[in-house]
């Protein structure tokens, strides 16, 4: 059945506006309603797999009005957003009892989901900016939610850098409007293909890469992430690290660079270099950390580097293939490019699942022990059995041990790099996987193995909704490998997304012909 696209935005928005009215007595009712909304969004997202639609809001025809576009990449990301937000909302039923003002937390959480859904569905570049701002403002407030010293400092740092990034993005949108005269993504793409890039548009592209790169925490712009992700409450860390940096950063960057401007050789190399820097710097900085969540935050930077590397590699191959000499020498270039982009996108979805599971388990550990420092923990394997199992599953997945999901995505990336004759990139991928192994062995040894300190003898497992959320994500970790192994699932879910990016600037023709 066809779900009208605005429902993805309208349903959580209406609930987010209703929830602050509940007050202290209606806390349970508010929690139940919020969980119903996220489960409903999950049902909607699953029902929208494989469909593509262009929805004109208010019945104004484009380019006069704004439109919502659902294509393969959007439906893949909608699925990821709804899975992670359903799990995090279920986890926060029990976890957020430690904080006050729970209805306001739920309202901000739903506003963040609205913002992310809007970014993914938007077909108009200023609309993308508005929804990006909604999601960012909600996340700034959520990072500083428990108003302690460190959380306020982290929230201020995140907010200053995030606002500067948003202003860069707005400036770039203004430059695009000044040079092309329209705001609809399909029409901008057609205008840029017709007229070519002048100095204003090149500056706009640079501003976009800086702005979205800061939202995605690529390495020259990553300074906010190691402070913001540990200080947030655990379900918010899971949302931030799991999908916010991917939707606001990687998806928007891919949409703008691939579908609107068109990839060129220099942009492809820039993405590859940024990805490699992020991978290596994130891994090296993570190994020396002694704070559990800070280590996971640095490892997020490293894994996002993988995603950008895959997408950049695909883009470079497509850009080189514009030259007919390259096409004759390498007749399989289309297969190589789509394999690289498939690796990047599959790694994005995998990372969403297992990094949010890791942050949820770290929240469970923090709730049981009251600390985040690795040196003060130890031997929690008997006290927290479910947490230990799920954390081990997630760590095995992120390191890349078969048959868990992380192995398949890293294997696809390595095969793509070797096929395209970038052997040094494959070597760097393997090296960073070894560093990831080191850091997660450190987590396992210090948190779960070893001796139990005396003050932690009373630590108990927290049952209930937290457990359900963690087990749900752990099952997905195990089963996600089937997304590439079973051909039917791959064609339904992953291949349309890859096709959107490898089609590149034919996006505009697709949009105007669907209408």
């Amino acid at each position: 059945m066809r779900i009208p696209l605005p429902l993805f935005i309208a349903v959580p928005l209406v609930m987010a506006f209703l929830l602050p009215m509940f007050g202290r007595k209606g806390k349970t009712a508010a929690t139940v309603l919020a969980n119903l909304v996220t489960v409903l969004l999950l049902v909607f997202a699953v029902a929208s797999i494989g469909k593509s639609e262009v929805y004109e809001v208010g019945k104004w025809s484009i380019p006069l009005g704004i439109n919502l576009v659902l294509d393969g990449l959007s439906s893949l990301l909608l699925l990821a957003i709804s899975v992670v937000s359903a799990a995090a909302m279920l986890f926060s039923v029990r976890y957020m009892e430690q904080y006050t003002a729970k209805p306001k937390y739920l309202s901000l959480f739903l506003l963040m989901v609205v913002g992310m859904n809007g970014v993914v569905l938007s077909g108009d570049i200023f609309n993308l900016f508005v929804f990006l701002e909604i999601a960012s403002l909600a996340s700034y407030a959520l990072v500083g939610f428990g108003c302690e010293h460190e959380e306020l400092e982290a929230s201020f740092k995140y907010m200053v850098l995030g606002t500067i990034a948003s202003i860069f993005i707005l400036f770039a949108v203004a430059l695009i409007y000044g040079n092309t005269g329209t705001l609809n993504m399909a029409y901008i793409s057609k205008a840029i293909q017709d007229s070519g890039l002048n100095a204003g548009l090149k500056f706009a592209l640079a501003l976009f890469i800086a702005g979205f790169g800061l939202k995605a925490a690529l390495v020259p712009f990553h300074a906010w992430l190691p402070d913001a992700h540990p200080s947030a409450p655990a379900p918010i860390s899971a949302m931030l690290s799991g999908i916010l940096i991917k939707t606001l950063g990687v998806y928007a960057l891919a949409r703008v660079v691939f579908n609107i401007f068109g990839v060129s050789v220099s942009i492809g190399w820039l993405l590859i270099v940024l990805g490699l820097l992020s991978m290596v710097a994130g891994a090296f900085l993570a190994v020396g950390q002694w704070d559990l969540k800070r280590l996971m935050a640095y490892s997020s930077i490293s894994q996002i580097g993988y995603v950008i590397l895959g997408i950049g590699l695909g883009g470079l191959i497509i850009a080189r293939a514009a030259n007919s000499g390259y096409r004759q020498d390498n007749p399989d270039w289309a297969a190589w490019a789509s394999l690289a982009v498939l690796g990047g996108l599959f790694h994005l979805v995998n990372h969403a699942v297992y990094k949010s599971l890791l942050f949820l388990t770290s929240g469970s550990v923090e709730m049981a022990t009251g600390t985040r420092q690795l040196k003060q923990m130890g031997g929690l394997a008997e006290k927290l059995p479910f947490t230990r199992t799920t954390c081990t599953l997630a760590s095995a997945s992120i390191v890349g041990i078969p048959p868990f999901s992380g192995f398949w995505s890293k294997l696809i990336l390595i095969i793509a790099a070797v096929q395209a004759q970038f052997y040094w990139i494959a070597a760097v991928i393997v090296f960073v996987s070894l560093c990831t192994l080191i850091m997660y062995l450190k987590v396992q040894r210090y948190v779960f193995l070893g001796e139990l300190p005396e003050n932690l003898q009373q630590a108990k497992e927290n049952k209930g909704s937290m457990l359900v959320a963690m087990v749900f994500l752990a099952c997905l970790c195990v089963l996600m490998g089937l997304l590439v192994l079973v051909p039917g699932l791959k064609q339904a879910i992953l291949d349309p997304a890859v096709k959107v990016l490898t089609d590149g600037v034919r996006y505009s023709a697709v949009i105007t012909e669907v209408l």
Partner: protein
Amino acid sequence: MPYALCFLLFMLGLYCAVVKKNMVKIVVGIMVMEYAVNLFLIMLGYRSGGTAPIIESSHLEESGQIAATFLSSSVDPLPQALVLTSIVISLGSLALMISICIRTYEKYGTFDITQIRRLKG
């Protein structure tokens, strides 16, 4: 030429947000950057010798259509709508930033960001 001055204002705001050590001055720098971008957006829609894009009864012809003289002389109203949205967004962002500054002052006792450095590494 006015675009270059707008860009200069943007650079001034960026300098202030990056270099200054007082939290409130950083917030003021960010606000100056937002004003510069809003100004740039409005200037994009300008047409020299243009009139305000508000339709009055003298601009309507008998059949209810808009007169061609109005269409050829009015400035572009779309950037004005974009700037309205952008001003509302920056208002919300400013309110959040100032409230975090005030809360941080209550906790740490200072506005100086070199003193607020508990998160390291």
